């Protein structure tokens, strides 16, 4: 189970004022207390080293959890890190940000006997951090194949794909619209999960393999045409994520104070001074997923007075895990279930409240929650991208791919959040990138014969 150990300072101030620098530091420090060498060994010893371990099956990247934990128990952290990273090059981020309580730790057999699961996430972090501190390098490039691959998007899927292709001897160019690599690791995950500029640290580790160049600030379809990618490269991988935010379809949704959560978190993650971020007194967050939880907690920790998360269905339907919900509640976030927003209350162009219909009750019973800030966290969709003459088959607005991540168009692969059926987790994007790279490699090397 995820344990959230860093505590917010509990301060909240009226709008227009800001917390002290010390409060920001406390509130956005690393949320997990990492295991030290001794506690890691004690925790590792709790692992039963299961045969055909369910945790490994539950991991989207198939990390051999039982084996890496056994290595930790024998003080072979570097070996453990190699085992992790060889399946999941972003093992460090996943150790911090994976909802382990619904994946590996949920599958831990210790659960079955009514015990706490082995703290797999913290152990994975211990091993990867330790190896990183020691400067351990695990990957070398195979002889050059002479092939080049273009990747669109330097997020988890793109970087994972690039790294695997580079190890297999291909040259990779990544086109990334943003200034930094890392995708949601850099711009989207909650700040306290990725403390210490971890996303960039990991990106540097990944790129250190060589053979990967990242062109930042380049938008495919605007700065370079898709056709050029197809012409200049032997294969293309689309790891573009979901760049567009869904809207609530209410009147006045563009009013001042109504903000897309993803955009605000992006600003927060890049802010040099958290005190400069706009923070209201009464916050309403619309949504029931991880983004909603993340924005609710972070805005509270930025000093907001009242934060209400409103979700149109019940507790059990929320995409955010039970542990994440509990975390939000413990931070003082109020969660309103069965609350369907029906209108925004606006005065002089500024939001003042949200009217909700009680969705679990027959009739038109409504209630209003005052709000000077409204965060929309109701999901994202594929941003329009000019792919020229190419026509992708899509499913619910996302790229349809086969089990090797091939799109409907020959020579073009896709993975991560932008493909149909993806669960939106970084760990799944990493797996997509890895599998796509293997498929690209097979395709390119077989066609050589």
């Amino acid at each position, binding site marked *: 189970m995820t344990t959230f150990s860093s505590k917010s300072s509990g301060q909240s101030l009226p709008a227009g004022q800001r917390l002290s620098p010390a409060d920001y530091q406390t509130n956005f420090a690393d949320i997990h207390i990492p295991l030290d060498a001794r506690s890691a*060994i*004690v925790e*590792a*010893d709790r692992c*039963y*080293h*299961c*045969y*055909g*371990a*369910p945790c490994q099956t539950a991991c989207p990247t198939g990390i051999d959890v039982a084996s890496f934990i056994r290595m930790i*128990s024998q003080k072979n952290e570097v070996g453990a890190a190699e085992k992790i990273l060889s399946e999941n090059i972003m093992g460090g981020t996943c150790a911090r940000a994976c909802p382990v309580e619904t994946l590996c730790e949920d599958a831990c*057999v*210790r659960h*079955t*006997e009514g015990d706490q699961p082995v703290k797999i996430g913290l152990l994975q972090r211990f091993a990867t951090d330790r190896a990183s501190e020691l400067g351990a390098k695990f990957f070398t490039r195979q002889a050059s194949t002479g092939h080049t691959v273009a990747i669109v998007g330097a997020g988890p899927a793109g970087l994972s794909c690039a790294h695997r292709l580079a190890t297999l001897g291909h040259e990779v160019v990544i086109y990334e619209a943003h200034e930094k690599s890392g995708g949601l690791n850099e711009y989207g995950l909650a700040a306290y999960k990725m403390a210490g500029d971890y996303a960039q640290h990991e990106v540097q580790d990944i790129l250190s393999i060589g053979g990967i160049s990242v062109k930042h600030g380049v938008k495919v379809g605007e700065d370079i045409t898709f056709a050029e990618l197809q012409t200049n490269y032997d294969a293309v991988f689309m790891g573009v994520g979901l760049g567009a935010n869904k809207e609530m379809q209410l009147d006045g949704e563009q009013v001042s104070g109504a903000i897309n959560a993803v955009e605000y978190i992006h600003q927060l993650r890049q802010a040099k001074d958290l005190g400069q971020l706009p923070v209201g007194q009464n916050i309403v967050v619309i949504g029931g997923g991880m983004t909603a939880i993340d924005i609710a907690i972070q805005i509270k920790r930025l000093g907001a007075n009242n934060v209400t998360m409103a979700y149109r269905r019940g507790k059990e339907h929320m995409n955010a895990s039970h542990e994440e919900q509990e975390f939000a509640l413990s931070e003082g976030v109020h969660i309103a279930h069965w609350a369907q927003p029906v209108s925004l209350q606006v005065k002089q162009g500024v939001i003042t409240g949200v009217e909700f219909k009680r969705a679990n009750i027959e009739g038109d019973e409504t209630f209003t929650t005052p709000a000077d800030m409204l965060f929309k966290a109701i999901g994202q969709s594929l941003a329009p991208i000019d792919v020229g003459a190419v026509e992708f088959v899509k499913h619910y607005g996302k790229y349809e791919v086969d089990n090797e991540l091939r799109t409907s168009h020959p020579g073009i692969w896709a993975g991560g959040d932008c493909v149909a059926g993806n669960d939106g987790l970084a760990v799944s994007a990493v797996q997509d990138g890895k599998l796509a790279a293997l498929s690209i490699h097979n395709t390119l090397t077989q066609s050589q014969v």
Partner: protein
Amino acid sequence: MIDLKSKFIGIETPNPFWLASAPPTDKAYNVNRAFEAGWGGVMWKTLGEAGLPLVNVSGPRYGAWHGTDRTLMGFNNIELITDRDLEINLAEIIQVKKDWPDRGVVVSLMVPCEEQAWKDILMRVEDTGADGIELNFGCPHGMSERGMGAAVGQVPEYVEMVAAWCKQYSDLATIVKLTPNITDIRTSARGAVRGGADAVSLINTINSVMGVDLEQMKMSPSVGQQGSHGGYCGPAVKPIALHMLSEIAGDDECKGIPISGIGGVSNWRDAAEFMALGASNVQVCTAVMTHGFRIVEDMIDGLSRYLADHGMRSVDDLIGAAVPSVTSWNKLDLNYVAKAQIDQDSCIKCGRCHIVCEDTSHQAISTEINGERGFQVRDEDCVGCNLCVVVCPVENCITLRELDTGEIDVRTGKTVSADYQNWTQHPNNTAA
């Protein structure tokens, strides 16, 4: 609650819990604290002959093998016998015995294997009022290289000779402490019996090297650049001690000799096991060197409750109660058949039973039940070896079921017989 009072070769103590001759019994200060805590008796740390005291190393004397959470599993030491002046020790023993008349004080002794040397020390000990002596024929390091300790204990004739001297030159109750560093501990126990010893105590420590520091590439612990072997004790040696205890308890030539049990006794359960296998009392060292003297509180309380719960009126009802259950392999019933069975309700599906059986034993546990992950014993392959039972992390999830008479063992195709048949009677035994 049952009174634990104990009588061992005439020595009466409020309970059967003694401290072994070792650092915790080196001086009055420690012994007084032990008696305050409730210990029944002490074996005073071994005295040597008069003269200049010997010298211990001023570096690591102890080493340990730890479990993951720093649980102390095994312990070793290179301490010698007392390095304090003989006169000081004797004076303290006199005072302690005066102050604690209801507790047992036995003095451990080790002097050169010469008649006069023993005569001299025996006279001195008699004058202290101590309840008896324990002959240290077991110390495996330092002293053995000087012809004492284990060097004596490993030669049954020497054991017999020295025991006889002690009985000849003193009226002190005499206990011979046996070394486990010998092929068959019964041979030295028999020597003690022949020499007229009143009791034997066992085991002393086992020759051991705790480990190697792989960074410094030298044995560990070491005194400066080198280390030397020490005596191994603590929880890890308990099974070895129990085996040797049961061998002596079941030996015809040693029949009836009182035994003081030593070797990894850490709590009341351990003590009860030693006593069930024939020890009249137990001696403890490593456990108090790990936790302090206070552990005796639980030992007293726990053993007393155990006796009450099991209808025993005194420790005498416990002593030797399990001795008849120990026999030799040749007398085990080969018609007994058991099969492992997995309780599916408590199984957590870790698969450890399968992988150990598959890799290292009889390939008797399958991995699927109705097409899903699940573990089940195949009776046709199971020999009832107990491996799955011991590796299963859930207690009582896997158990052995004894087949009833008349049932068919599907592995062998034979009907389980009610008749006892051991190897000496078995048709496959051509020597029978």
